[in-house]
C-alpha cells in the first residue's frame, strides 16, 4: 500500500492470508491519519489483483478500530471485489464504507 497523495492510498498486488496482517496495519495507520484530519480515507484498488476473505476481514477490522468518525471510500474496486464485499456480509454492516468501480 503506497501513498498516492491527496489523502489517497493505492493498494496493489495480492492481499491474502500471507499479507493480510501487514495490510491491516497499513490501513489502520491510514485510517488514523484520515480520522485525525476529519476527512475521508480513500483507498484505490485499481492495481489490486486479488483480495480474499482474510484480506477483507483485515480491512474491516482496521476500519472499525480507527475510523474516528470519518468514512472510507474505496475507488477502482472491480466487480469481483464488490461482489465479495457483499458476500462477506459487510454490505449490511452499517460501516461507512463506499465501494466504487
Amino acid at each position, binding site marked *: 500500500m503506497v501513498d498516492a497523495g491527496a489523502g489517497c492510498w493505492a493498494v496493489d498486488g495480492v492481499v491474502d492470508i500471507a499479507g493480510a496482517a501487514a495490510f491491516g496495519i497499513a490501513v489502520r495507520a491510514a485510517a488514523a491519519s484520515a480520522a485525525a484530519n476529519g476527512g475521508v480515507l480513500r483507498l484505490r484498488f485499481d492495481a489490486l489483483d486479488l483480495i*480474499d476473505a482474510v484480506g477483507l476481514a483485515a480491512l474491516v477490522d482496521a476500519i472499525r478500530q480507527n475510523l474516528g468518525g470519518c468514512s472510507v471510500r474505496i475507488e477502482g474496486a472491480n466487480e469481483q471485489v464488490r461482489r465479495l464485499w457483499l458476500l462477506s456480509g459487510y454490505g449490511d454492516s452499517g460501516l461507512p464504507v463506499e465501494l466504487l468501480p
Partner: protein
Amino acid sequence: MSEFGATPANGSAALGLRHVLYPYSGAQQYLDGTVSYIDHVRNHGGTVVVAAPESRQHLLRSELPSDDSVTFVDTDGLGTNPARIIPAWREWIGHHAQNGRPVYGISESAWSGRTTAQLQELRYHEWLLNRAFAELPAWSLLCPYDTSDQMADTVSEVTRLHPWVWNEGDYAQGPDYVEGPYAMDRLPEPVGPYEELAYTIDDLPLVRDRVVEHARPSGMGAARLRDLLIAVTEVVGNSIRHGGGRGMLRIWVQDGAVVCETRDAGVITDPLVGCMRPTACQIGGRGLWFANQLCDLVQIRSGAPDGTRVRLHMDLPELEKPTDGSA
C-alpha cells in the same frame, strides 16, 4: 403443524422442515400434485414460494389464479452448485415470513443432465436440508421429482432423502427415509494426468500460478479464472490456518471442468460449512462460503484420520458436458 413465520395455536415453538417428496411422471401429474399442495396451503392461510425451472413455472402459472398467495422466485443465480440451495431457501423463506403468514415452498431441482459428481452433491444437499432447518421455525417444502426419465435405483436414492411424501393431497411419512448419518460418496481419483504440488503459506503465489497454467489454456475466461483463484486461495488458506499449516494441491481437467483439490490434516465437523451466509460481525467462516458461491461445484470430504479434501470444479465454456461423468 405450525409453519414458518406463524405462531402455533398451542403456543409451542414447533421447529424444523417438513421436507416432502412428490414423485410424478408427466406434466399432468406434476400439476395435480403441486396444485393440490397449493390448495392445501391456501386452506391454511399460507403463502407459497416456488423455485422451479421456467417450464414448470409456466405450467403452474397457467393453472393458478392471480393472487398474492404464490410467489415465483428466480433460480438463475443458483447455477449448478447444490450448496447454494440451503442459503437461497433461508433467504426466500426469511423474506416471505415477514408478512406473518405461514410459508410453504416448492422446490424442483434438475436431476437430469448432471455429472456423477453433481448428482452426488445434489443428493447430499437435499438430505442436508433436513439438518439446516432443524432449529428454525417450522415450514414445509414440497420437492416435485420427475421419475419418468430416471432409473429405479436413482428414484430410490432420492426417496431416502425425504422424511415425507405428498400423496393424494396430503402428507404421508416417507417409507424409505434414512435419517442419517449421511454416507458420503467416495471421491474417485482423477481420470488422466494431474499436477500435484505441496504447499505452505510461502507457496500461495506458486499455487495460483499453477491454477492459471491449467485454466487459461483450457479456455477459461478471465472473470471465472479470477473467481477460481479466489476459491483456491480460500481453501489453501484454510489448510494453512486449520489444516496443520500445509497441504497438497492437485489440479486437472476432466468432464469439461478444471478441478482443483486440496488435502490437509484438518477436520471439518460442521456439515453446513460453506452453506450459511455470513454476518458482518462474524469472525471467519467465509472461505468455503466464497468457494461455493464462486465455483460450479464444491465437494468436501472430511474426517479423522484422513483429514480434509476439498475439490473445486469450475466449468469450462463451449465444451460438451457428459451426463455420466465421474469427476
